[in-house]
């Protein structure tokens, strides 16, 4: 895999741009009236994303499909009350996260956090410069199987770190939406993503050198 080298002056900053979403073609009134075209678009766009999110948490096949059905059930039950103040995918992801928590409670799994905050604070000096500088990622760039490896490495993150990372990187949600979906502050979100990336890098570099 080769890394694109930005040429024009502002391309580096432009890589922080958001991706396009389903929101731009959404007609809420048609959706509430169960217009088949709008429904079909909604399912085509969102169902794979919901399943991907569940896959990242180790939930696949029938269990994942069951949770997605429950998610849609709740969505349509509450759709009439949805006024469009937040984005519709934020609303749906929020429902999914709650369904996932219910599922975990039912299967007696405990979510726990670790010391993301401590690791983050250690990485920067009080003036805001790096205290532990990240190394050149040449080994990651040369890894041709990175796409496959990253799915395995995601299992090493906590649920919160994985969800934060995927919502921003895979789903392209804005940081504001991600905070709303996960119920965390912007600084917490930042810490989760920072820690997730640190762990992924360690895991992937370990695989690259193996």
């Amino acid at each position, binding site marked *: 895999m080769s890394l694109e080298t930005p040429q024009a002056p502002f391309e*580096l900053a432009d*890589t*922080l741009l*958001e991706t396009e979403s389903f929101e731009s073609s959404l007609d809420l009134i048609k959706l509430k009236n169960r217009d088949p075209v709008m429904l079909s678009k909604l399912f*085509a766009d969102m169902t*794979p994303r919901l399943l991907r999110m569940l896959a990242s948490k180790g939930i696949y096949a029938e269990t994942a499909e069951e949770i997605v059905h429950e998610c849609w059930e709740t969505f349509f039950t509450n759709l009439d009350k949805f006024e469009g103040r937040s984005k519709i995918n934020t609303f749906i992801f929020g429902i999914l996260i709650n369904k996932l928590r219910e599922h975990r409670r039912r299967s007696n799994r405990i979510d726990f956090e670790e010391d993301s905050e401590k690791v983050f604070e250690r990485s920067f000096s009080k003036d805001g*410069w790096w205290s532990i500088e990240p190394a050149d990622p040449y080994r990651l*760039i040369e890894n041709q199987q990175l796409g496959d490896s990253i799915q395995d490495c995601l299992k090493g993150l906590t649920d919160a770190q994985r969800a934060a*990372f995927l919502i921003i990187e895979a789903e392209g949600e804005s940081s504001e939406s991600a905070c709303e979906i996960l119920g965390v502050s912007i600084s917490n979100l930042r810490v989760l993503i920072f820690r997730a990336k640190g762990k992924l890098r360690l895991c992937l570099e370990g695989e690259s050198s193996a």
Partner: protein
Amino acid sequence: MKLGHKIRKIAHDIYYKNASKKKLEFSLICRDVTAAIDLRQKPKTITDKFRIWLHLNLCQACKNYHDVSLVFSKAIKKNPSQDAERLEMMNKLLMKKFGKSEDKE
């Protein structure tokens, strides 16, 4: 050390020596630049865009961090791993369940 890194280090040292003497922080601090990368925050003005670009061209550590983030972004998007047929079936079932009933009175 690669040539690009050497050049970046020289430019970085010159900039920050002068900037800190004159108390200039135009090119931002690492913590803020990496926050913008992590949160995928779009620079609001052309000045902000330039400040981030300047920092990423002066600071090898942040450039490395930015490159790693890009690599992860691409890797995670490249790997959807879903069964297309099963997905289509599921969407058909969803349409049947939640679509408008044609038999409604």
